[in-house]
């Protein structure tokens, strides 16, 4: 199958994104037309991009093409290999869903906001992501990376009249540039060794890296890509920036822009730096565990629906890093097969998280669209007016909690299996880390389930808590179609996992030289097995079928039993008080109270209660309640860092006297120093 036109279709997809960007700008004066152009061309680009990725994966052999630019080291070179195909496919699935969703979503912008500018940024975001995932040239990669950061800034601050939004945007752009700086240094180091700016040259040059250089490069790239991926402790921009963007953009930011960091790590750690020592893998693993546990713990304390989802992105990036770290450790320990399984776990979770997080953000977007609030404490009862949104959100919630038979469970199961194998595959005391990481993964999963019980139940179930949630209607059809597509993907990837997993063979063969996809499948293609000595088997398909078949006796029991008496509706037990109202309902804050108490060491919660009363404190007229948790990382890490920076800047002011003579002297001294260094052989 060497005739598939991967390159042509890919180029067409890039063209669709670029013309879409320009056409959106050109038609900004006609909002309705602009909306159609914006969503239509993005959808076309996504379909073409998805097609190219599917063809590329089917074809198996990488497609390369390069156009020289005339500038030294810089070339428009692309390398469409399995890794690029995987990330492009993920991008295409999400971009398709978001474009369909946006048909109706952007309607409320008409007459209020510039859809043309939005479309321009939206297309540039997709274009830069495609370039980042596909290019083989460092400079083109960095340009794509920077465009992505700037465009994302434009989209995050789209509602720029809000002070909170502007602050979040500033924080985001500062962090994005720290990460770009780290990458620049890292790539400079690699280019110095290899003498070329092509990724392929790093592979061959990796052997010449001294262990010191390798360590420095690893740390720089881990910082750079880690900030982009939002791992703890570099996460602080993420829960600020993602929720304030328009919801369709939040879905893309959490779904795929974060994954650019994961892409970079996989590309560089597995392909560009040679075999990394095991401490590097363990560091990735430990940072992953910390991100997973802390991410979900902070998510539990949120009652802003979109911020809650943003914190869950940190958690899931952590789970991905657990798999990636395990893969790195296994590779250096001489277990490439295990490394391949761990890598599949990480990559499959990347895909899964992209899909269900996008779905959940789009669901939150529908809720925000209909009610106008992100505060869960004002929501409730939305399952009746918005049944489809509620169903899609529920599927997303079950999937992200890692519950069977959906896709989140499968990738977490593979992660568990690789962690279990890690105990036998590595030596020394470090091997105790693997089962411990497994138990922390279990904690993360259970806390995530708790968090999504809260998110779903408080938002969609029981009675509305605020006036916003009272008179709402279902989201328009195109938004439902966008969410429905992702819901179907979640179900298909969960129940039909054994059909999709062999597609990862090309990826693991490229990065680790192993094909394990067929080892993972057994039992008439229905059963997923861990493909290793320490292993188990599971079949989401049979679990799904079993749940349906076993439903028959349950339904029979109830229907036979309930023949004599009808079921009737009645009021909920109200302890004899006059009727139940929304004031009796549990709130999100109340729901997470036990965990706030248990983990109070981390949260340092502070609360304040003031009661207003006339005669006796036992009969308050009004109560003011205030509760907050300590933003540990901001307070303990970033504020001291900022203070240090400001202190240093004030000191630097002494030499910035503003006198032209002084500046001339500085220039002269610098010149002399440079000449001295330059002349030395």
């Amino acid at each position, binding site marked *: 199958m060497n005739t598939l036109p991967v390159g042509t279709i890919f180029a067409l997809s890039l063209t669709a994104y670029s013309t879409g960007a320009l056409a959106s700008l050109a038609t900004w004066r006609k909002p309705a037309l602009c909306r159609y152009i914006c969503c239509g061309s993005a959808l076309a680009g996504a379909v073409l991009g998805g097609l190219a990725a599917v063809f590329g994966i089917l074809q198996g052999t990488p497609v390369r093409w390069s156009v020289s630019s005339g500038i030294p080291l810089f070339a428009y070179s692309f390398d469409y290999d399995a890794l690029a195909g995987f990330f492009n496919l993920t991008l295409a699935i999400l971009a398709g869903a978001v474009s369909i969703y946006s048909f109706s979503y952007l309607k409320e912008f008409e007459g209020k906001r510039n859809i043309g500018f939005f479309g321009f940024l939206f297309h540039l975001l997709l274009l830069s992501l495609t370039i980042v995932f596909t290019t083989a040239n460092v400079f083109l990669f960095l340009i794509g990376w920077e465009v992505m950061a700037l465009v994302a800034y434009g989209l995050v601050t789209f509602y720029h009249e809000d002070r909170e939004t502007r602050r979040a945007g500033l924080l985001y752009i500062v962090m994005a540039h720290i990460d770009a700086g780290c990458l620049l240094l890292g790539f400079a180091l690699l280019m110095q060794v290899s003498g070329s700016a092509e990724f392929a040259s790093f592979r061959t040059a990796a052997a010449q890296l001294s262990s010191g250089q390798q360590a420095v490069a690893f740390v720089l790239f881990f910082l750079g890509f880690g900030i982009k991926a939002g791992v703890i402790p570099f996460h602080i921009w993420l829960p600020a920036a993602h929720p304030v963007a328009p919801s369709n953009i939040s879905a893309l930011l959490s779904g795929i822009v974060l994954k650019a960091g994961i892409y970079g790590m996989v590309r560089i750690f597995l392909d560009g730096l040679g075999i990394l020592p095991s401490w590097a893998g363990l560091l990735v693993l430990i940072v992953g565990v910390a991100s997973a546990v802390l991410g979900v713990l902070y998510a539990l304390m949120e009652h802003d629906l979109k911020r809650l989802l943003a914190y869950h992105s940190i958690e899931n990036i952590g789970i991905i890093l657990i798999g990636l770290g395990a893969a790195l450790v296994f590779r250096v320990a001489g277990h490439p097969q295990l490394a391949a399984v761990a890598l599949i776990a990480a990559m499959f979770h990347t895909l899964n998280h992209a899909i269900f997080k996008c779905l959940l953000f789009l669901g939150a977007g529908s809720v925000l669209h209909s009610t106008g609030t992100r505060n869960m404490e004002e929501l409730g009862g939305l399952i009746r007016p918005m049944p489809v949104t509620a169903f899609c959100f529920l599927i997303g919630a079950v999937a992200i909690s890692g519950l069977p038979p959906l896709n989140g469970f499968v990738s977490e199961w593979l992660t568990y299996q690789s962690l279990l194998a890690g105990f036998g595959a590595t030596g020394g005391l470090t091997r105790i880390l693997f089962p411990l990481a497994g138990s922390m993964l279990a904690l993360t999963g259970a806390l995530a389930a708790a968090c999504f019980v809260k998110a779903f139940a408080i938002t969609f179930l029981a009675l509305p808590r605020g006036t916003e949630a009272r008179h709402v209607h279902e989201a328009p059809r195109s938004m439902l179609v966008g969410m429905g597509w992702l819901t179907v993907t979640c179900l298909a990837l969960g129940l039909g996992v054994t059909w999709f997993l062999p597609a990862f063979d090309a990826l693991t063969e490229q990065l680790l030289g192993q094909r394990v996809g067929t080892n993972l499948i057994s039992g008439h293609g229905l059963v997923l097995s861990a493909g290793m000595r320490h292993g188990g088997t599971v079949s989401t398909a049979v*679990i799904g079928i079993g749940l349906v078949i076993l439903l028959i006796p349950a339904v029979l*029991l109830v229907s036979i039993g309930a023949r004599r008496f009808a079921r009737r509706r009645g009021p909920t*037990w109200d302890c004899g008080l006059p009727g139940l109202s929304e004031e009796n309902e549990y709130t999100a804050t109340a729901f997470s109270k036990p965990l706030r108490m248990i983990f109070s060491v981390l949260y340092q919660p502070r609360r304040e209660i003031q009661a207003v009363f006339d005669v006796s404190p036992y009969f308050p007229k009004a109560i003011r309640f205030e509760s907050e948790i300590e933003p540990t990382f901001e307070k303990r890490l970033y504020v001291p860092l900022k203070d240090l920076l400001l202190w240093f800047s004030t000191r630097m002011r002494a030499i910035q006297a503003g006198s032209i003579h002084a500046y001339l002297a500085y220039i002269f001294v610098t010149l002399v120093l440079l000449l001295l260094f330059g002349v030395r052989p």
Partner: protein
Amino acid sequence: MTGLLAKAGLQLVLLLLVAPFLSGIIKTLKARLQTRRGPDVLQSYRDIFKLLRKGMVIPDTASWIFSTTPYIVFVIAILVGLMIPMTTTDAPLSLFGGVLAVVYLLALGRFFLALGGLDTGSSFGGLGSSREMTISAIAEPAMMLAIFTVALGANSTNLSEMAKVAVSQSWKFLAPSQMLAFAALFIVLIAETGRIPVDNPATHLELTMIHEAMILEYSGPYLALIEWGASIKQLVLMTLLVNTFFPFGLSSDWTARGLGLGLIFYLTKMLLLAFLIVLVETTNAKLRLFRVPELLMVSFILGALALISTFLF
């Protein structure tokens, strides 16, 4: 295929019949230890039978989540029951889900039960759901550590494989790692099945209740499904404990003789475990909610010690 269905059918009948019996035994034993007469062993069957024939009231505020939950809870309990070895090492659906699937399927049931509790709009449902999710979350790492310890010994997370390895070394429970893991899992069992000192299964309409608060609004056949499901879940967790650590009498095939002998051994082991649970329930007072994490921390540390001792001894 037909063999599989026959095995599954047989084990299904066993599950449905033994689970209420075990709940009944625990209640009777507990009453006797407290010098009460208590209900007889068959009372649990009568309860379920009666509930199935009653009418039911569904709260005004509840949505389809409330009505779907009982089915999900019940179906998951029996599906999980088919994945564990009861009287033979060869569980019908063991190939399709190991111990991780069992833990996560039970979590799925709990997820919906908690949603059902919150769907009613009553504060009781909310507090039950909140506490249930909290306690299960902090029980999870301890459970997973202990499970990992056993799975590492058996080189598999597949329950039939684990049972086969256990049978081949029946006296392994004397090893320190196994004893520590058993202790850790026993504490988790107490927490997961909602027994004293974590939760009191005998309370109704008290501010300390957890599981009962979540299902307060359920009535009639729905309540029957939930109660039956809960007793099957308890059976499953207890079976997991006895058959992993004390695999005596587990038959290696599905012959009548093996099954009969296996059933006798199985019931004896379960009765002994039930007695242990009753002993703990009678000699302890219920803990304050915020003392429970300390108990589960003990379990976590026992699990960690079990793990460390696997490669020390």
